[in-house]
């Protein structure tokens, strides 16, 4: 592999990791704070993608692009908040099976709703001119949109980190991860906190869907596809750990990209090879903690 090719494959790996991180960050945040396995996280991602197609189709220019992405993410965040209030908050005291069933039902409901509203055909939306091309890095040609995806993920990672470690909301979230009962006794409104956390998780899923819309065709079925990968990433990184989501995404993204280059026949298997290897060594994930 020449250096030029190496750079291109590296950038594709990093952009794949960026997308995986955006999706799995929300998933792991919600699991950490709410102890909720949200199967419908991919559906929120799909919703974000379809909304972005609708919004970006009517807006133009760089500002329109940013506005459309933001509007789609916020709309999905709001939908997430409503879902938490209407459905999920009734399930925290139930066992995990009940939560799985409820969020599985949400997958079906959201997918049905998307089909009714947007139809069953795939959709696409144009990439803005500013991000559509490629630039030369040394002797290799790198896609600008991939760099944009990486930029978004780094920004979100930094934002999440400051939120968790620099704000009182973040302190409460971290406390909720450790012991929600104690937090309630300390006078924190845990109900509101949980709604907020779920809303942020949904917003991240919506953002991931929105930024991916100009990059690949949007169709029904991308929900389940992404949620399987995101679960693999969070299990590799350790459920509930933000650092784990970063490392897990990078690992899977890079192994996927270099793996396809070296041995394309196994392209479907790479993510599961990594998963199996990590589970063999650390069943609780790289940055997770064993259940007490």
């Amino acid at each position, binding site marked *: 592999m020449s250096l030029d090719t190496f750079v291109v494959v590296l950038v594709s790996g990093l952009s794949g990791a960026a997308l995986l991180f955006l999706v799995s960050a929300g998933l792991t945040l919600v699991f950490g704070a709410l102890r909720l396995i949200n199967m419908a996280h991919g559906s929120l991602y799909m919703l974000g993608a379809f909304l972005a197609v609708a919004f970006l189709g009517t807006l133009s220019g760089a500002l329109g692009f940013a506005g459309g992405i933001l509007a789609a993410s916020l709309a999905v965040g709001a939908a997430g908040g409503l879902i938490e209030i209407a459905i999920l908050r009734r399930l925290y005291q139930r066992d995990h099976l009940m939560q799985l069933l409820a969020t599985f039902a949400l997958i079906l409901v959201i997918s049905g709703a998307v089909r009714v509203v947007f139809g069953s055909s795939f959709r696409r939306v144009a990439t803005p001119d500013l991000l559509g091309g490629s630039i030369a890095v040394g002797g290799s040609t790198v896609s600008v949109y991939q760099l944009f995806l990486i930029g978004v993920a780094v920004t979100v990672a930094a934002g999440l980190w400051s939120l968790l470690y620099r704000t009182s909301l973040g302190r409460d979230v971290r406390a909720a991860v450790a012991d929600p009962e104690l937090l309630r006794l300390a006078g924190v409104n845990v109900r509101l906190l949980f709604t907020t956390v779920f809303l942020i998780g949904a917003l991240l899923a919506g953002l991931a869907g929105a930024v991916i819309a100009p990059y690949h065709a949007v*169709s029904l079925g991308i929900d389940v596809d992404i949620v399987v990968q995101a679960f693999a990433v969070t299990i590799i990184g350790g459920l509930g750990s933000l650092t784990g989501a970063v490392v897990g995404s990078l690992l899977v993204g890079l192994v996927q990209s270099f793996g396809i280059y070296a041995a394309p026949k196994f392209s479907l298997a790479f993510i599961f090879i990594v998963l199996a290897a990590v589970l063999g060594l650390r069943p609780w994930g790289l940055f997770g903690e064993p259940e007490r």
Partner: protein
Amino acid sequence: MNRAGRRRTSLVFLTCIPLLLAACGQSATTSSGGSVTIAMNTSLSGSFGFFGLANQNALRLAVEKTNAAGGLLGKQIKLEIKDDGTKPDVASDLTRTEILNDKIVALFGPVSSSVALAEQTLVARYKIPYLLHTSNTDKLTLQGFNDYTFSVVPNTGMEGRANAIAAAKLPYTRYYLIGPDYEFGHSQLAAFKARLTQLKPGVTFAEDYPKLGANDYSSYISKIQAYKPEIVYSAEFAGDLITFLNQAKGAGLLGKPDSPKFFGLFDVDTLRNLGAAAPTGVYAYGRAPFFAIKTPQMEQFVRDFQSRYNIPPSDWAVMAYDAYTAWTEGVKKAGSFDAGKVTKALSGLTFQSTRGPLTLRTVDHQVNASEYEGVLQADPAVGFDTFADVTAVPGADLLLSPDQVAAARAA
């Protein structure tokens, strides 16, 4: 829930059972009255949903026309369409129910070849004429063949061979092949490679099979760039093709003066979705693009479809419509809905399709349909890119000889 509540619920269920039974009885008797039932299980959800939607729109339109004109052999046609979820086991259950409860007299094929292979064994067991229009692995007419199966779509082998004939006329010898990693992609690319090697012995190939529904092709794109082919031949389709083209353009693999040429599968739905983003100037192939086919039947169908659904019919709508036409011609020739008589009438039948006269030849019930080749060109009249310089590779040049059919079945 308390005990009284539970009792109430079970009471509700109990009262429902007779209603359900009554409903079943009803649909069983209507078939023997003034109507007959036909069915199609196809992909109406998931990433193949838009194919199934096109199938459904075409069949509904066709059935409405028949019924408005007084029916077929004096009977009204009832159409049952169900979502198979692209799952063979679901499709098998649906098919069995339709055969046993709804007493269907014909079954129309699905989108997915694996679903078709599952349904195919059932139609043989229960003796139901089975008409394929979208799924097209050649296993359906070779290894899996039975007397009840008929195909109006050019199969994977025919499509690959047609494109090889078109490619042999181009001056390129260094190819990169890319196709989705499932039955269709592998067998279509294999047929393309075999025929092109035969026609142009000097050609060299590299190939890759990304997973179906992949959302990141960038690693494959950088491999292609490193290989420096003269032309990329693709069996990617629909959403996957759009994703690939978009990312290829972003990586500089397409659209630059020194980029390799591109030759790919462009169906009408994909072209309509691409709109102005279509890669004008690339080589394209398709199974039934309405704009490339000039027959009175096609003209009429496009007009009807457009006025009913406000979009032009895709290849998948055209072929589903042709499948229905074939079946009605078979019924008329047989003078009956009896499965044995209809399949006998269909075998060897020549019918007027939207794609011109087609024959379901006796040896494998495969129609001698053409594959359409051209170059993408903006078309203001329809509002998206269509094919320029169209050639229809004649079906007769694409079918296997009866000996080859026998050999493939024996293998």
